[in-house]
């Protein structure tokens, strides 16, 4: 019955359809449109359509652009290489052999997902810089590696490789169990069957996750800004940020660079989607089966040490550095017991402090973004699933567009769109502008969760509601929405965690005098109050991770058995 036939008589609510369309137009299409217009008409800001394309081609021909695009590509490819080198061996070990404490390593490798990359980068700076913690402990520093292109790649690789690790170890495990054992039955040895069967079959999954790492690294602002600026290594993201935030402001330039960056992200995204929807990848999806893993023998200890080292570099070191800095009375006091104290936390959380205000702002914005993005996401996904014809195509396209919109580009689009002098009213210079930016950046998450959940729902549940006398809107509110709620809550928590510490869009569009967690950390670090910044970073990681985890367990506890709807 669940043929997914779309019934002309029982279309989804027209109201919802229009809500989704208007919401997406305002939040996604308008910023994109203004970037394109600005790139073409350099004087658009002063109301003139003169000299179309003049700056466009000038910027495109600018050697600066080649430099920036080249650096971006270099950084993306380098990060992908680092992530692959870090992830592939341990993923293979994890999938094919018995590793002591395997679940603990898995749990530790999840932590990089919870630390925003710019915070980890700041932790690395505190450790490796001259007179940093490494030098205090061992007597030498690695500043020359840290402030180098390789260093940036390594640190970004450490921040992103766990994506690859988790995808790949799961894929290896599934394939290992299903196919490579077959290969061994036919006489291929352990290594032969890994190289000849497991690895080739895992290729699409590996490629897709590496493309995700590529997209993440070319969109990243914090790490290249913190490390690259000191050595004059600029990428597109920092170049765009420069052009829009530093005098002389170059709107057409930032718009054109944005288009270049979006094209790169779009290509990565399309390639990734294509890889994931290919049929040969699907055969290796599904659950890893119980699988006889082999003993490592004499290699057990070295393999365990390798896991420990990787987990320490990816998780332990940045967190320890953050904590050490936050707990130091003064930075110059260094790692000494006498220098330990809670002064930074006291100053951060003292009544009426800027830090407390920033925390409050971010939590407020994070919560609102989570609610609105999820509602819009659910309505959009529903309208797409129920929709037909041109409407459906437009909505679908609009809802996945932000996948390839880096935060900095969203910020540029929003500035261009909502800072036009001729606008009678504008959310610009109010906290609402941050809300628009966050929703745009994060919309793909709730849409993805809602779509998956809607596809699991039998068609007849809604049909039964309609036949029982509920109109389209009522059927959505009373039946569809409650049934997809559990997965929407997961999406909300994800959106909250990311939105409450978003950096680059917040730096660019936050109203004057309005700070968020990320802006606060960034400013403190810039002004040399690293201790205060790191105290905030620590609180941020704790709050944005702890609150969500608490919510998830509460939800599990409340809904024991009662949300059996999705089976």
């Amino acid at each position, binding site marked *: 019955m669940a043929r997914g036939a779309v019934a002309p008589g029982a279309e989804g609510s027209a109201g919802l359809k229009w809500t989704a369309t208007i919401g997406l137009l305002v939040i996604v299409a308008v910023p994109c449109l203004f970037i394109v217009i600005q790139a073409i008409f350099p004087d658009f800001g002063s109301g003139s359509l003169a000299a179309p394309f003049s700056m466009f081609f000038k910027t495109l021909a600018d050697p600066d652009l080649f430099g920036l695009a080249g650096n971006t590509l270099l950084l993306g490819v380098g990060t992908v290489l680092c992530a692959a080198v870090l992830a592939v061996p341990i993923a293979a070990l994890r999938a094919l052999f018995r590793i002591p404490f395997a679940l603990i390593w898995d749990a530790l490798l999840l932590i990089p997902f919870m630390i925003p990359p710019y915070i980890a980068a700041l932790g690395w700076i505190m450790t490796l810089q001259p007179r940093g913690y490494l030098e205090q402990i061992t007597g030498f520093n690695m500043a020359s590696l840290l402030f180098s292109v390789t260093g940036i790649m390594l640190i970004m690789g450490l921040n992103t490789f766990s994506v690859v690790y988790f995808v790949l170890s799961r894929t290896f495990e599934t394939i290992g169990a299903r196919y490579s054992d077959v290969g061994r039955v036919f006489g291929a040895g352990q290594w032969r069957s890994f190289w000849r069967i497991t690895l080739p079959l895992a290729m699409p999954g590996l490629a897709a996750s590496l493309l995700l790492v590529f997209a993440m690294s070319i969109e990243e602002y914090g790490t290249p800004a913190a490390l690259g600026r000191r050595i004059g290594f600029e990428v597109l993201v920092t170049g765009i940020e420069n052009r829009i935030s530093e005098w002389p402001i170059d709107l057409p330039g930032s718009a054109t660079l944005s288009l270049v960056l979006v094209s790169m992200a779009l290509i990565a995204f399309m390639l990734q989607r294509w890889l994931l929807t290919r049929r040969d990848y699907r055969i290796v999806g599904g659950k890893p089966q119980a699988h006889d893993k082999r003993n490592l023998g004499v290699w057990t200890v070295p393999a365990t040490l390798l896991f420990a080292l990787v987990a320490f570099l990816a998780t332990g070191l940045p967190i320890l550095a953050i904590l050490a800095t936050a707990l130091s009375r003064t930075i110059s006091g260094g790692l000494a017991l006498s220098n330990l104290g809670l002064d930074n936390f006291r100053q951060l959380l003292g009544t009426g402090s800027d830090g407390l205000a920033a925390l409050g702002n971010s939590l407020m914005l994070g919560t609102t973004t989570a609610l609105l993005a999820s509602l819009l996401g659910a309505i959009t996904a529903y309208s797409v699933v129920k929709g037909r014809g041109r409407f459906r195509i437009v909505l679908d396209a609009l809802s996945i567009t932000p996948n390839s919109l880096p935060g900095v580009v969203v910020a540029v689009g929003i500035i261009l769109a909502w800072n036009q002098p001729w606008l009678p009213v504008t959310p610009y210079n109010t906290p609402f502008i941050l809300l628009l930016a966050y929703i745009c950046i994060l919309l793909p998450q709730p849409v993805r969760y809602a779509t998956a959940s809607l596809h699991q729902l039998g068609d007849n549940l809604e049909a039964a509601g309609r*036949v029982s006398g509920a109109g389209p809107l009522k059927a959505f509110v009373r039946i569809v929405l409650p049934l997809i709620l559990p997965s929407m809550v997961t999406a909300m928590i994800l959106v909250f965690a990311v939105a409450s510490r978003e950096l680059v869009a917040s730096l660019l569009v936050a109203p004057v005098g309005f700070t968020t967690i990320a802006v606060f950390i960034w400013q403190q670090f810039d002004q040399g109050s690293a201790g205060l910044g790191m105290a905030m970073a620590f609180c941020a990681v704790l709050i944005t991770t702890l609150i969500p985890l608490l919510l998830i367990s509460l939800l599990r506890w409340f809904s024991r058995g009662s949300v059996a709807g999705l089976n």
Partner: protein
Amino acid sequence: MITKPPAASGNPALSLHSISMSLGGNRVLDRINVDLAEGEVLGLLGPSGCGKTTLLRLISGLLLPDEGEIRIAGSTVAAPQTGIALPPERRGLGMVFQDYALWPHMSVAKNVAFPLEMQGVRAGTCKDRVVRALDRVGLGAMAERRPSDLSGGQQQRVAIARAIVAEPPLVLFDEPLSNLDRELRETMVDEIADLVAELRLSAVYVTHDHGEALTLANHVAVMREGGIEQLASPDELVNHPKTAAVADFLRLGCLLQATRGADGWTINGTDLSFPAETIAGSQAQVLLPEKALRLDASGPMTLRTQVVRSQARSTGHALILRLAGTDHVIRLLSPRRARTGDGVDLSFAPEDLRWFPVGEPVH
């Protein structure tokens, strides 16, 4: 007991006029005509993919027809020519789905109360009517449970309670029992039959099980490839199948080939012969109804068969016989056991055979 007697309006509960429908480029339904009087049950019977669900979705408003007109209790609910297209919620129907379609986030009582709530029935009245509907299906004690905590049969009873609680002028059943096992199916058929009779429900009952259709329905429409092959009462259907396809689908008996020779019709592979004027044409199909066969050689006509298999049943022995000289298989229930390879004589009267012309274009 649900009290309100159906309004004696004299309008047919349902009438379909020349309904056609294409899905994905296929003509799924082709000029369907049906009239159903109030208080009667129409069985829609047919093999998988013949368009039963599609027809039901058209009646419910979950789909709109390409052509034709649908009237429910006298008012037109869909007529593309005149632009009438009532959405499902304004047709006031009850519907029971094959997969139950109970809402897992609501209790049993809430599920059943939903249609009343949508009609704006006051809370007090609503509660009474929910209790009565649940009692009707024997689930009064389970009102506060979650649907997921019920067995399949209980879930389907809840779905039935939900479909009848608002006393709709027409209830639609889409293969309601096909997800249940056989014993349960047989009890539930009787329960539904009682319910339908007591409430004088007008209903459309879709199934691919001819037993269910013949038990429940006043009229049965046998569908095939998007058309209605025959629409008749169960008796008429069993005694006078209109086509060989209907006879085959209803498993009325053994279908044999016959050829007209110089001195009349002969059944291929046998020496049974019939007068030339039985039917026109040169080839024909003959139905040898199972219920016309007797296990003796008393005539007036007899057949020699050989036992292929004999299976013990609770009601006797199911014999599978092969008609001597042919590959045709006859199934027959016998009080006695038989050994494989034994010869068995069967008798029947020639007037009990049904003749169907061959080569006639399929309509």
